[in-house]
């Protein structure tokens, strides 16, 4: 027979595990928009962000070309990015950009396998804007979206 004490301990541990997992998933779904120190504004609203990342706005206010940097859609961040910002699956996102590039309507976005590579690209490319989970890189700006550093 399992004692009541043991049952209480098991329940407590289960609850704790659930809370920990839930907080982790929550943390993974958060996205941070980063931009180069030059040309990219430090604050945008969500619709502006989507217009930029979908290639609808191709230049910043100072005339610098917008250069999009995204994590590949087969990475967790890439998947989340597709869903939260583009409201598309990974494949749909690919087809979307393929269609635009094929017709010469946008400059093709750069896709990366790691956040560090993406951050390095953004820090070194004027007009570059990218999406990561979080960053502590001081060579780039965190773009606040609708007043939030993470979306």
């Amino acid at each position, binding site marked *: 027979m399992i004692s009541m004490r043991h049952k209480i301990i098991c329940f407590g541990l289960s609850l704790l595990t659930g809370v920990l997992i839930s907080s982790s998933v929550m943390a993974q779904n958060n996205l941070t928009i980063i931009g180069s120190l030059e040309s990219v504004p430090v604050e945008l609203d969500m619709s502006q962000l989507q217009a930029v990342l979908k290639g609808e706005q191709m230049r910043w206010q100072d005339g610098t070309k917008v250069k999009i940097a995204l994590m*590949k*859609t087969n990475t967790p961040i890439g998947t989340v990015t597709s869903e939260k910002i583009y409201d598309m699956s990974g*494949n749909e996102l*690919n*087809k979307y*950009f*393929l*269609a635009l*590039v*094929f*017709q*010469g309507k946008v*400059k*093709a*976005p750069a*896709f990366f396998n790691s956040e560090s590579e993406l951050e390095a690209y953004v820090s070194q490319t004027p007009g570059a804007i990218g999406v990561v989970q979080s960053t502590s890189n001081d060579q780039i700006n965190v773009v606040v979206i609708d007043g939030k550093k993470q979306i």
Partner: protein
Amino acid sequence: MTVLSVVMMFALFILFYFPARQERLLLENYNNEIENFAKTVALGVKIAITEQNFEGVETAIDFVREDDRLQFVSLIQSDTIWAEANDIDYTIGKTVFKTFPDSVEVDTEGHSDDNHIVKSAAFSTPMMSGEILLSFSTEEIVESKRQIRMASLSATLVVFVIGLLIGFWLAGNISKPVLALRDAAHKVGEGDLTQSVSSNSKDEVGELGLAFNKMVKDLSVKASLERVRSVIAGMRGKEDLPQITPVIWQELISVGVPFNRCGVFIIDEKEAVIESYLSTPDGQSLGIFNLPFGAHEIAGKLVDNWQAGKIYYEHWNKKEFLEWMHTMMDLGHIESSRTYQGDIKPPESLNLHFVPFDQGMLYVGNDEQLADDELGLVKALADAFAIAYARYEDFKSLEKAKNKTEIALEELKSTQTQLIQSEKMASLGELTAGIAHEIQNPLNFVNNFAEVSVDLIEELNEEMENNNTEDVEAIKEDLKQNLIKINHHGHRASSIVKGMLEHSRTDAGAKVLTDINALADEYLRLAYHGLRAKDKSFNADFTVNTDDSLPKINVLSQDLGRVMLNLINNAFYAVAKRAKEGIEGYKPNVVVTTKKLDKAVEIRLKDNGGGIPEKLLEKIFQPFFTTKPTGEGTGLGLSLSYDIITKGHGGDLKVDTEEGVGTEFIIVLPE
């Protein structure tokens, strides 16, 4: 015309073939270029989808878009459409994913036509499959084609003009000499070997002309040599010899050797004379005369140089020439200087050239000394003359040999005729002896009974005087019997003679039905008694075994009789010879057997003599072969017998012999 044709062909080649080929190459390259563009874009799309790297497709599509020839580039997506009825059947549906520029409506099957070329390149990824359709305008190709044609036309005109100029130049420098060469070659082909062409130029045409002239010259020389060979070798007798000088004269002219006198000297070392054939200054023959080796100084020099095989050259002035002419007159070879020179004055200077050949020297006289090449021609002529003259001499030798052979053949034929006659006479002698013996018997009876009858008549007279009537009657009866016997034996002799006459009356060459049995019996006995008549010591048994069923057959009875007489005589000769060897218990025997065969008659004549040695067997039917001592046999008996049986009767004569046992001749005659 030829040059114009070549120029035209070349011009047409440049005008049509060259641009057509260039256009085809251009089109191929254009197609390949568009296809490569399509493949590059398709590869970029594949990388973009699978690796999310859009740089490739972006670069490729930018490159294509910037090309002015682009009509559209389209990304076609292929989807599998399953049939609603089952999960097996499906179709591939093609939809236009994106096209640049947007405004173009694209047929997903995409076909090329005169205005544009469409190329496709497929790609396949897990996410999406399809193809890139790329359409380019053909305006650039059309323009390029036009430029090529213009360039070709210009080049054709230039080539044509240059070609014509070259043609005219060739016509002037090649065609004319070549045509002249052609005409000359035609004439040479027709037998005119005096042709030559001018060959002033130093190019190939000039060399061709020189070669042609040399060829005609060589042909002319060869033809001359051939004529010399032909004429000289065609000579058959002394009456042909005067042809020599005119022939040499004519052919020296033909080969182009300068001369004014010529001649041939045939040197006979055995007789120490030079048989000379000389010409007059106008090419006539002076006749043939023999010049003794010592008759003139030149004769000795000729012989010496001929023996050394050297060309001999000498120069005469007028005095030396006249000395020679007088020598000829002294020897009686020419009557006067007019005979030798005609109306022409004696030369002040004469160069004499003597070229050796196998049988003598060929002489050419000229005002000037001959050059080496001219002497070479004379040498060739001399060699040709030598070959032909040797043939003439061979022919003369053959003629002599032929005449000798013909005489020998005639003598041989005469001897053969005599021998055959001798053989016939020998047979006749033997036959006569036999006949005499046959007739002698009844004549003996006739004589004996006649003598007895004379005695009986004397007795009869005595008894009549004594009136002894009984004895008279008895004697008269005896006389009657004697007369009957005389008559009987007289008839017998008459019948023998009649039988002989029957045989002798038979026409030569006419076959008559003959009783072979009777013939065999008759000739066996005739032969025996003939031999007995010659040699009283000769004795032998003889038998005739006749086949009574033997039919009479058509034969040349006299000839067949001679055959049988020959064979039987030989048989008796063989047994007599063996009998003289003194072999104990030996009894000479000759047997003649006749036998009817199927459609033939066989006569066998067998003796038990010494037989014929095997080494002689194959010779016994050869004419003039005999083993009998000289004077006893002609050697024609068996040869004639063989001919009579085989050729005269279509039969066969064979011999079967064994040394020490005997010989059997077998005659087979067809019915």
